[in-house]
Structure formats: C-alpha cells, structure tokens
C-alpha cells in the first residue's frame, strides 16, 4: 500500500467516526466529515510539500 493511500484511508475512517460521534443531524455530519477529511489529507500534503526541500538523510537504524 502506498503512503498516500494509507493516509487517505486513515483520514476517511477518522472523519466518518468523528462526524457520526459529534453530530446527530445528517447535514451537519456531512459538513464535519468534509472539514475533517479535507483538513487531514490537505494538511498532510501541505506538510509534505513544506518538507520537500529538506534532505531525508540516511535511513534510521532498526532498533
């Protein structure tokens, strides 16, 4: 599985979970779901873009 796909699946699960947990009205649930999902995926991409100029360096040793 690619990193991006895992990030999207994770964001999807958490967004659905919190939308169902925190909101009771269907319309409000959809709005919160979109806010959380776009926030998580978009935020992840933004952080990745900001880190792009920095070299990754050698891989960390396995403990």
């Amino acid at each position, binding site marked *: *599985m690619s*990193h991006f796909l895992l990030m999207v*699946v*994770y964001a999807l*699960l*958490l967004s659905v*979970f919190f939308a169902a*947990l925190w909101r009771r009205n269907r319309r409000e649930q959809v709005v919160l779901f979109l806010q959380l999902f776009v926030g998580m995926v978009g935020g992840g991409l933004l952080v990745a873009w900001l880190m792009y100029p920095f070299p990754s360096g050698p891989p960390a040793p*396995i403990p």
Partner: protein
Amino acid sequence: MSAPVRSPETTRPETPAAKAAAAAALDAAAGRRGALAAMLAVVFPGLGHLYLGRKARAALFAAIVLVAVVIGAKLDGNLYTPLQGHPLTYLATLGSMGMGLPYFLLLYPLHYAGDVTAQGYDYGTAFLLSAGLMNLLLVLDAWDVGTGRKE
C-alpha cells in the same frame, strides 16, 4: 357520585419530597443504564450503542474500529504491551486496550506481535492505537447517551 378521573398530571407526586424521590429514582435508573452501556462498550466496539437501541450507529462504530484493527494488524503494526523502564508504553497499552476484546484476541489466541522491520509498521501502529482510542471515546458516548445527557 363517581370518583373523578385522574389525569397523568394529577397522579404525579406533588410534594417536594416525593418529587425529589422520583427524580432520584430516575437518576439512579439512568445511571445504571449508562454504566451498563459503558461496560458493554468496553467489552466490544459498538456493543454499548447496540444495548441502547442505536443499531445503525453501533454497526457503523463497530465497523470503523474493526477495520482500523484489521488494517493495523495486516500492516504488522505494534500492539502495545507494557515494557519495564518505558513509562509511555503503559499509556499506549491503556490506549490500545481500549479496543476491548479484539486487543486480547490478537494478543493471546492469535499471539499477534508486530514486525518492526515491516514496511507498514508505523502506519499499522497508528491504526491499532487509533482503534483503541476511538473505542474509548465510544465508551464515553455510550455513557452519555445511557444517562440521557446526549441523544
């Protein structure tokens, strides 16, 4: 002359002491309902909501938590257990144990142990830990719904 018909309003306790007793009895019943719902939610994701009659929500919550557990296990993530000298593992273990029965099923009958060399180890750990934490939130929600604080 026949006795007057008593409406539900007139059969309610009228004295302040009777009202207080009725409210206390109602609170005690709601408290027991909330406690049982919370305990069931600890045992298995969604069970507390199922007990409270929220069938659709119970199925959705159970599916989300179990999907997170399965993905985490498939990615060979770490299922936290306490490690001496590493206090944070105690907290992480409590968080992971929040998923209830699946935690113990993975640990004992299935002898699940994550693989630190696996490519998806970190992602798997995040999924497993999140599953436990999500179910802990479900326990609190079941308590709130059971006691009438929430719909």
